[in-house]
Every structure is written in C-alpha cells, then in structure tokens.
C-alpha cells in the first residue's frame, strides 16, 4: 500500500452523517480511506466496509482513526465504502476518502 504524502495527488471526498445513518461513498478512481471519525453519547460500534467486505471496526464514544499518510485501507476504483454504526444514539460520523486525481 503506497500512499504518497502529497495532497496534490488526490481528490478528497468527505461524507458526514448523524444518528443512526450509515454513510457511504462510491469511488470513481482507486485511492484510500483516509479517516473515519465518530462521536456518540454512548459507546458505539463503527464498521467500515469496502465493496461489502468489512475491513475495520472500532468501539468507543469518540473514535478517530486514520490520517493522511497512514490511511485505514486502500480502496479500488468503482467500489463503495460504507461506514455504519450499531447501537447509535446522537451519533455524528465522518468519512474521508482520497481518490487519485485524474
């Protein structure tokens, strides 16, 4: 997995949601799931899936995973990244996907 630390190479897509929503982004070009963030009033389970396959899950009331240079996972072109939350109450979630710029 190569993730060049140069934002000029990538187009950034950010998706946000609230409460019991799941949020998703379908890529046009391959790239990386840069980060997932969530906050809730109670402990929640956050699941990250790519193309229907779970690639990561986190538990907590304040989750902040991944950053530029240390992404969560690589994602192919024309694939759907989904972040879902179980047992959610007053939840805010955020997904950032970087796709190669073209």
């Amino acid at each position: 997995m190569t993730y060049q630390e140069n934002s000029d190479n990538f187009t950034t897509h950010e998706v946000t949601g609230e409460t019991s929503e799941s949020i998703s982004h379908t890529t046009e070009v391959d790239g990386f799931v840069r980060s997932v963030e969530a906050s809730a009033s109670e402990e929640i389970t956050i699941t990250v899936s790519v193309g229907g396959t779970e690639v990561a899950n986190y538990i907590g009331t304040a989750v902040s995973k991944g950053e530029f240079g240390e992404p969560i996972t690589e994602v192919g072109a024309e694939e759907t990244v989904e972040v879902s939350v179980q047992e959610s109450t007053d939840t805010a979630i955020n997904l950032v996907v970087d796709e190669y710029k073209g």
Partner: protein
Amino acid sequence: MKEDSTTISDNKLEPEDFLVLHFSPSRKSQTISGDTVRTKVSELYFFQVADTSEITYKPLRIRDNVGDEVGVIEPGEGVDYNQLYDDSGNDILRNTDDPWRIYHYSLGVRQSGVRVYPRIPDANFGGAFSWLSGSEPSPQNGDEVGYVMSGETDYEDPSSKLEGFVNKQDDLTQTQFGFYVEEGEVPKRPILSVVGQAYELRPVYDKSQMLEILADLSKYEPQHRVELIDYTSNSLRTHNTNIPDEWLSSENTLTVSDANTSTTILEEIGIDVSVDDVVDVGGE
C-alpha cells in the same frame, strides 16, 4: 531497456545541444579479418537542437482507438498493446507534419502496482525487444518480462526507462503500450502522463562533426551536450525504419558497427590505434 534512475527531465536538451537518434540494428554484410559475415549495423542520425518546447499530456486515460476509456482494470488483469489515444480517438503522439520536429517523451503512471509493457509492433517498421511476435510478453497475462513497474515512474517527471522519441510518420506512432494490474492490488483506473520536450532540429551533415559528437558521448567532460536516444532498444530483429525523406537528403547519418565505430572515433579524437582487424563495412 535502460537500468538507470534518470528521469525524462534529466535528459532534456537545450538549444545548441546535439541529438543522435539511434535506429538499431539492421543486418548487413561486413568483412572482418578477411571473412564476410552478416552482423548488426546501426543507423545514427545527427541533429542540433534549434529550439525546444515542453510537452505535457495529463491526465491521460487508457482508451481505445475510438476514444472510449478502457476503465477499471481488476487485479491480475491487463489491457493489450495499443497506441495512446485521446477522447476523440486521436493518437496523441502522432507527428505527421514536420520532419525537423521530434517528440522526446516518457510515460508516467500515477498509481503504484501497474505494469507498463512498451513495444513496437511486429510490422514493417520497428520491432522492439528480442521476442518474435508469437512469444512477446503479454500484458493481458501479466508476463514476468518486458515491463516497467509504475512505481519506478513518476507522474510529474517520468523515468527514462520508458523514454522514447517520435519522428515524422505518415500514420500512427509505432510505439504501443500495454498495462497490467498486479495480483493483490485493488482494482485500478490508471491515470497516465506523457511528459517531455518537442525539439526543432537542424541536421548535422559534416562527417567529422558527427564523429566528434559520438566521441563526446563517452567523454567525462564532453565538448558538447549530446543525447543519444534508441528507437528500438534490444531489438534482435531485422526491420525497416521509417526515415523522413528530408533526413536522407540531408545525409546527416552514419552507418556504424562495433567493428568500425570505436576505432574511427578514437582516430578522430587523435588516439592512434591499430586497425588490423577492421577492414570494411559493406552494404547488404
């Protein structure tokens, strides 16, 4: 294929620099030590750069000859050899107008994990690498030979490993590229770049100057800046090359072999050598 790590910008020429285009090799009869043998003989064409301009085409997608994008390549799959086309189906490296203008370029890929297979098709012109058409590397199968990894190239300033030139042709450019996404990678929609220079050239037709230029190629401190670019590196095939009539008329060429060139250059730069073993170079 070159094994260095230089980029296309490292090899950029400036006005007044010299350019030698190397078309290699054809087979000709040659007399060495009294015996006539068929051996490889190269054609070198000599130019001085009159003017330069940058050429950049990015982002470039992999498209077919009607301009439709190939799209996503799954891991373990590839795309067969083809020219580089724009969205209208035009060969972007075509050079059909001016015999004294050439493109000196290389190809970059933004993503890692993509193999680039260059070739010159088995046709009247060219013929790259040492494989016959039936056994040349297949991009679609991901053959383990004949490619440059995209990680070795750089999108903004591509490696010279895929360096090439295009002179005036009557039809499509001869160099084609195939692509393959390695196993274990995610599906990729490659983003390509073509980066280099266009040179306006004038011929060098004085033989002694041509030999001086050749000698400069091997000097630590050359008198002139010279770049030599291969048209068909590593080719073992007999082939024809598409030389503009204007070059032939200007007589800016040397036909050379290992047997006669090095000795002639040494003589030209004033080093006395024995020529006992080098007798003659004859036509086919």
